[in-house]
């Protein structure tokens, strides 16, 4: 698949949140206002891109040659968790400003299943290193797009009359479901028309 195809696929057609339903916790938890959604989205994009590279290298250079590819899930969990920790430390040391901006969102990504998801999808799809990185980056952008749209909706919802028992997370989940239905308009036929 062309790189353009990968980008379109992971932003629109196989959107991590709205089509694959991965990473719903930050999607609901951190979308109350636009700034925090932006911070979370950028942090996830950053981590997904790096995690895609690292897990690709790990799988193809270590696990596959040793015949240990059945350990991919647990090894990827360990890798991603440590990677996020390391990234947090590095950012705290060398860029306190960025650290302040990312705040609590960075450690939250440790347990974000979307990062894990893209790592496993990369392996399953047999991408090469650059394709993996592209897929990770595009999936991050897809996450950013979804969470930004969601935060815009939720900011608007603050001023709307919502039944009290639906306030907060329940109405957010309902809106998320409606958004997911809208995203079903993007499918592979669209991609084929685009790429030809």
């Amino acid at each position, binding site marked *: 698949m062309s790189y353009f195809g990968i980008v379109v696929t992971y932003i629109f057609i196989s959107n991590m949140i709205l089509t694959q339903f991965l990473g719903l916790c930050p999607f609901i938890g951190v979308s109350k206002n636009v700034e925090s959604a932006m911070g979370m989205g950028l942090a996830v994009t950053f981590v997904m891109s790096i995690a895609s590279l690292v897990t690709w290298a790990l799988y193809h250079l270590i696990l596959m040659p040793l015949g240990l590819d*059945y*350990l991919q899930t647990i090894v990827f969990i*360990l890798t991603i968790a440590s990677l996020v920790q*390391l990234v947090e*430390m590095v950012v*705290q*040391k060398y860029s306190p400003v960025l650290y302040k901006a990312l705040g609590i969102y960075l450690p939250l990504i440790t347990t974000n299943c979307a990062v894990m998801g893209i790592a496993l999808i990369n392996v399953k799809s047999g991408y090469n290193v650059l394709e993996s990185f592209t897929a990770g980056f595009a999936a991050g952008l897809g996450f950013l797009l979804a969470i930004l749209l969601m935060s815009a909706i939720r900011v608007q919802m603050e001023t709307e009359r919502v039944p009290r*028992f639906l306030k907060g997370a329940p109405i957010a989940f309902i809106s998320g479901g409606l958004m997911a239905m809208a995203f079903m308009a993007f499918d592979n036929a669209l991609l084929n028309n685009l790429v030809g």
Partner: protein
Amino acid sequence: MDVILRIFWGFLSTVLFGGLLGLGLAVASRKLKVEKDETVEALDGALPGLNCGACGYAGCGGYAEALAAGKDDDLTKCKPGGADTLAGIGKILGVEVDTDAVRMVAYVHCIGKEGIASRSYNYSGLQDCNAATVLFNGDKDCKYGCLGLGSCINVCPTNAISKTGDGLVVVHADLCISCGKCVDICPTGVMRMIPEDADFVVACNSRDKGKVTKGNCKVGCIACKICEKKFPEAGYKIQDNLSILGYDNRGPGRADAVEKCPVKCIIPYKEVKVRKASNAG
């Protein structure tokens, strides 16, 4: 044999890999250590670490930073920590603090249990007060009472609230950390904060006129004004057809009013506590 070997290698390599990563992180955390502000760390230690958000910040860390930076000069925002935390913060920041303030606890101002307060219909939906409120403001005829479905139980961070089995909920005062979350979530406003050392409580929240209240609930405050008029020093005040008991000036006659109340909705708080204890078991 092959399978066992496979499991063994898988186990060994995962342990090795995990250990390697852990070691790497340990080394990295040494090398990349950032000096933290000592005041912030000390304050963080003094705060209870509940991260309940009662202070208005996302967690204890946020409050500690705001205090250390001088952005916030109100030291009493940590209600759950109580006097100990307040004293600790004051010591670190070198500020005189008054730790004698009485702890506030939530209290359900309603004793209209099953059979005492009438119901207008049988509610059989989501077991949540806020959901029930959507249908004619709940299934009780009295729109101010405790619906007993326990929205407050779900938000309480310390499990201090429980159902009594007769259609009401009670707050266990010793577990309450006065974060006020239950007060915010309660749709009828029947939960209000009272001082922990309260002597008596008016266990009713009905703002209806006396006649209406009487029709709805056998123990509702009918605003007869006996407590207010007969014991003017005692601190009872009728507001919106409801007797409100003040706790600042406890004049004579507070106990006598309990006897004189025709519907017996003024009750000693101590008795309530005993009732709670027997229900807790």
